[in-house]
């Protein structure tokens, strides 16, 4: 395909040739910035017919997440496809264009006392489309659930240019298959989402974030305390275990720390804070952030860790991973990850949800140091029937460490799904598990 052909489809200022490469890979020879669904459809149809490979991007925060191609023929950037389409306040739903950054949406909703039940990393960069495509969640997943739980409907452009609607605009819907699930978490390998309708929640009347710091030697107290808390009737929004270096950054204390959050009416928040105080083992430090302060803590939290658009440090690039485990194994995993890193002279930042079982780690180092470390952690996790997905790695590293891990999954079926939706493998080719 030539510039001529593409120029028929998009105004020249929104399509450009790009030679620049990025250590994270996933670059495009052409960069297209469509503003409408039809433009996307035309571009895709064109590409599909010509056998081009297309990568899709929003804010680019997940550029280092998966993908065995350094370059695609075209990068489809949805950064220009933004804004709220329809906010039905009384129904607590919003329809928004896929390229809208999370923060932009959150600010809009907050004006109406509402919010998206989601606290992903880099809300200023990450777009709703990217977050949904990666089914990305943050610490408050415990109360919020994941994008798969709040996406109500989508508009999706298929590789052949057809436009489909999935789901709907209402909070309950079982008409036909739950086609939303096909696209949520599929890393853009099946279709391009242009509009997303989500279920909203009210902003909490009050909230707090407690950092419980466990002095050296008392780490063994974390698990029993957690068990007590988990079997209580408290309703924590987050229950994250932080390793000392991460705690240093967030809570200012270099100790294993438990971050416990509550959001509710003030009386109920007070009540739960009191419970924690009353049940805290002796010698455990406690710091509390309330209201706005707690909010700011969360905001800062979301800006930790590596992200795509940063110019990566080539000597000591960043790596990150998402780990899934049984929630009761979170504490031991965070400790193990920390210890195994220090054995290798690495410094790892780690936190994990003791209520939902998703943990995250990130670190910097040379390939020779980091990859074996990740492989070792992975084997520990997989032995416990969990998984480790390396969700931020330089492109070269991804060729050496399977981003997705070795857990047996019904791959045959997944491959057939890909073949059925994208027979020419036009979209995000090799970006996903098993080279899908």
């Amino acid at each position: 395909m030539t510039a001529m052909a593409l120029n028929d489809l998009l105004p020249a200022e929104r399509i450009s040739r790009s030679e620049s490469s990025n250590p994270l890979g996933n670059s495009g020879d052409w960069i297209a910035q469509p503003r409408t669904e039809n433009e996307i459809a035309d571009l895709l149809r064109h590409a599909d017919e010509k056998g081009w490979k297309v990568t899709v991007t929003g804010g680019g925060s997940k550029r280092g997440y998966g993908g065995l191609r350094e370059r695609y023929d075209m990068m489809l950037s949805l950064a220009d496809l933004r804004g709220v389409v329809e906010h039905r306040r009384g129904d607590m739903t919003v329809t928004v264009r896929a390229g809208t950054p999370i923060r932009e949406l959150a600010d809009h909703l907050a004006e109406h006392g509402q919010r998206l039940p989601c606290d992903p990393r880099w809300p200023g960069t990450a777009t709703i489309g990217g977050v949904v495509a990666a089914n990305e969640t943050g610490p408050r997943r415990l109360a919020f659930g994941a994008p798969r739980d709040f996406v109500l409907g989508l508009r999706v452009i298929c590789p052949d240019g057809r436009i489909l609607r999935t789901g709907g605009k209402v909070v309950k819907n079982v008409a036909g298959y739950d086609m939303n699930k096909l696209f949520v978490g599929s890393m853009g390998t099946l279709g391009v989402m242009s509009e997303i309708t989500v279920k909203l929640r009210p902003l909490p009347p009050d909230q707090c974030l407690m950092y419980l710091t466990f002095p050296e030697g008392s780490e063994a107290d974390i698990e029993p305390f957690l068990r007590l808390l988990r079997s209580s009737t408290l309703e924590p929004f987050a229950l994250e275990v932080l390793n000392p270096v991460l705690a240093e950054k967030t809570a200012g204390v270099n100790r294993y720390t438990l971050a416990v959050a509550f959001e509710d009416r003030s009386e109920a928040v007070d009540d739960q804070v009191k419970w924690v105080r009353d049940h805290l083992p002796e010698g455990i430090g406690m710091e509390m952030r309330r209201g706005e302060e707690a909010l700011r803590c969360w905001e800062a939290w979301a800006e930790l860790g590596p992200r795509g658009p940063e110019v990566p440090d080539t000597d000591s690039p960043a790596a990150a991973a998402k780990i899934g485990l049984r929630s009761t194994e979170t504490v031991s995993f965070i400790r193990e990850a920390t210890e195994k890193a220090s054995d290798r002279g690495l410094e790892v930042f780690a936190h994990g949800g003791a209520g939902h079982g998703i943990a995250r780690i990130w670190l910097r180092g040379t390939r020779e140091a980091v990859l074996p470390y990740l492989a070792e952690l992975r084997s520990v996790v997989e032995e416990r029937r969990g998984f480790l997905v390396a969700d931020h790695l330089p492109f070269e590293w991804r060729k050496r460490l399977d981003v997705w891990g070795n857990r047996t999954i019904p791959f045959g079926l997944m491959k057939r799904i890909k073949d059925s939706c994208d027979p020419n493998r036009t979209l995000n080719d090799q970006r996903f598990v098993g080279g899908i």
Partner: protein
Amino acid sequence: MFGRKKRRLDPLIRQLMEWVGETNVLYRREDLVAYECDGFTLKKGEARAVVFPADTREVAAVVRLLHRENVPFIARGAGTGLSGGATPLGGEVIISLVKMKKLLRVDLDNRIAVVQPGFVNLKLTQSIADRGYYYAPDPSSQYACTIGGNVAENAGGAHCLKYGVTTNHILGAEVVLPDGEVIRIGDEGIPDMPGYDLLGLLTGSEGTLGIVTEITVRILKAPQGKQTLLAYFDDVEEASRAVSDIISAGILPAALEMMDRTAIEAVESANFPVGHPLDIEALLLVEVDGIEAGLKSQVEDITELCRRRNVREVKTARDEKEAAAWWANRKTGFGAMGAISPDYLVQDGVIPRSTLPEVLGKIREISRDTGLRIANIFHAGDGNLHPLILFDERKPGEKERALEAGSRCLKVCAEVGGTITGEHGVGIEKREEMRFVFTKEEIAAQIRLRDVFNPGNLLNPGKGFPQPGRCAEVKQEIKERRMAEG
């Protein structure tokens, strides 16, 4: 004598018996009659046989056999489905999962439970309640329906306003695919396993993508406190506005249910009356739960919001027992229709909450036009309506009018931006109404997905989508029109 009988048996039946044992295959006409429909009684069909496998291995073996012999088959749970999902169209083998009804494992610390598909919904909560836990999705049929059936229908319930529907609580499954292959999705309840969300696709697929033989579900800690309110209104519109007001005020009740006058008449004349006044136009049943300390002010806020909408009376349940009676009265509401009408057809449309008053008005119009009474019991909080169309199948023409009324109700829901089913599924019943919400292409895309899982379309054929015959008719019509135009 039996030997002789057996020799005359359909060879397929004999082979099925070899896999699951003689007593676990039903094939006599009288026995099959009981399987000619599920909770949706307007369409009936005769199955070829019913088999009762004891475990996944037997399910897989039976499925492999049927696949090889090219015989269509259907999974069936308790048969409480309301759209004909488990109803045979004719000649299918029904694979009943009711004998796979064990609770396999409970892990309270990780908050998961592993059950067989035939395990009855309410049993799960009953088995863990003494330790303070429960399973959130609570369809009104929970006394009888199976968790396998819940997964297939993505069942909702009164409490899904706050806690979500079945799909939000399923963490893993073992599935027998239509060719007999057994796959496992999700493990130990760990979320986000790499790959496409197969679990999400299977949930709500109405038993057309695979047979679920083991399920890992999330269980929750029972809330610290709970308050149940009952608000009686003299005007339906005011009641529906109160619903919107409550939600807009940032209150997220665990449940927010509504019944109208006809529905109240039914529940009060049935088996679980609680003494609702019969001259009110609507009632709201609201439950808030959570941290005890935060409930009092929520109850006050709700009461105040109802007052502003001219409520006649608001009361809070004195104790668990009273609340339970209110709930039993509500949850048996569909069945209670039997007390005021020989037959009923329940619809399941969903609308944006804010259009409630408008839609209720239109339903009244439909009732007037068709001359049939329509009762409304519904999950008002999430806009999931259940118009119950009352009719007498024995009166000529009434069934057809009921079907028409049902279809028109769904049309109204689709027109205000809603959908045709919120929890009961499409099944046989709403196949044609799928066109109200999806284009031909969108339906084709869904059928393509089905073909990925179920390429021969042997598993529960003919469900969920407009019938191909009709499709062809439509195509033909379009072609003819084009030709006429061109």
